[in-house]
């Protein structure tokens, strides 16, 4: 297991429970030591990031350095999350890298995501351990013991 600076937590936002489960395993397979939290909607994700609602007293759970965000969700979707996230207080979003995920073969979403400055990376589902490793290595520094 490898530890990375600023990557104590990873947040998965996807309305599909099995997908969150799979992604959690994929991250495990990539041997990254981080607390993986998964939520199934945008509201809960924002609450988690800002210590609001049911997450008011959860200072012990590390906040994400990496957010995997599904674009296509019922109700508030990935783009809505980005809009809300952009308006958050700086202290909540200082270090997070956001990865937008969508089902492959969708050219238009890709074009849109590329023009959104705060989306650092855009990836096609399914997520693979190698993809996670590459990502983490390019955005975070490994902590050697």
């Amino acid at each position, binding site marked *: 297991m490898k530890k990375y600076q600023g990557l104590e937590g990873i947040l998965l936002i996807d309305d599909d429970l099995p997908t969150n489960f799979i992604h959690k395993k994929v991250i495990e397979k990539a041997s990254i030591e981080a607390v993986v939290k998964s939520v199934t909607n945008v509201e809960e994700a924002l609450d988690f990031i800002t210590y609001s609602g049911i997450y008011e007293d959860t200072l012990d759970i590390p906040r994400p350095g990496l957010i995997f965000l599904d674009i296509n969700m019922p109700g508030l979707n990935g783009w809505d999350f980005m809009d809300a996230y952009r308006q958050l207080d700086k202290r909540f979003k200082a270090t997070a890298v956001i990865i937008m995920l969508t*089902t492959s073969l969708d050219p238009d979403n890709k074009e849109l995501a590329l023009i959104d400055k705060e989306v650092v990376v855009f990836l096609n589902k399914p997520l693979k351990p190698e993809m996670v490793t590459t990502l983490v290595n390019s955005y975070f520094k490994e902590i050697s013991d």
Partner: protein
Amino acid sequence: MDPHTKQLQLLKLVDEIEGYAILVLDKRGNIETWNNGAEKIKGYKAEEVIGRHIRIFYTDLDLMISLPERLLEEAAQKGTAYNESWRVRKDKTMFWGSVTITALHDDDGNITGFAKVTRDLTERMLTETTIRQHAEDLEIKNKEIEQFVYIASHDLQEPLFTVTSFIEFFRTEYGHLLDENANTYLNFIVQATDRMKNLIKNLLDYSQLGSKKKLAKIDCKQLLDTLTVDLDSQIKKSGAKIHYGNLPVIRGYPTELSQLFQNLISNAIKFRDKKESPEIEISALKEHDGWHFKVKDNGIGIDPRFQEKIFLIFQRLHGRHEYEGNGIGLAHCKKIVELHGGKIFVESNQSKGSSFVFTIPFKPNLITA
């Protein structure tokens, strides 16, 4: 015949002509003469209308904007006035009238009245409207279908991905507990999901086909030179020989056209007669309606009963264990050819094998997809 008799004949003709309402008006637009055509089109007899103003033929709406007066004014100013709109018959029904009003002058150039020629174009008008409506409906329907296919295939992928992932987890975490039978089951599940994945991808490709097309000049010979390099391994493996001489430079959609040739060549190789190596001949003929391309092979041929069915999406003629595929290649071809405004069909060769013929019009850009 003396000129006077000729004039009388002309008058008689005008009087009897039925397809046109031909009337003479006085300076103010009151009716002076009335022919058979006028009676037929508008329903009035001569004695009912002579002396009345042409306003009686106009709808309330046109009267509100003083259309008859404006047309008479225009004819007086410019010599002639043309108008198409709904007109009213005696029985209050409407017809679509095409009306030309021409000013009549005396020897000194003063206006003495007008000649008015009216045609009933209701049928043409209705036909045009119907055709236009059909075209619009069709366009909307096509957009809907494309959207539907896109969304459906998009949403279908996620659960499929879930199944694939969990089979993998199952294998890695519980593989050691499974016997041969259980493994066979899993293999079948994997095969089915793989096939489903391909079907969805093909369906999506099909719906996206031509959505970003760009018209350009295409050197067909050059296109085939490149294509045969791309298909090299397939060609070598089958021992196929591909012949093509001079091919034209045409206007079309390069990516799509290349895909079209690729599909046809791949098919010719795939459906070869196992007893001999495939011979594929590609030629083009200039005809009045555009270029006629022919891709001829010596393969297994196609039963005439299925020569139309093969172009439908997901239609296959052979079992999956005989020839693999999803039955989308020729549907793609058809869509590409139609994108160019052409047609595609298959013919049986006299000797053996089949020939796919498709047309590409000289000006594909005139056809809007």
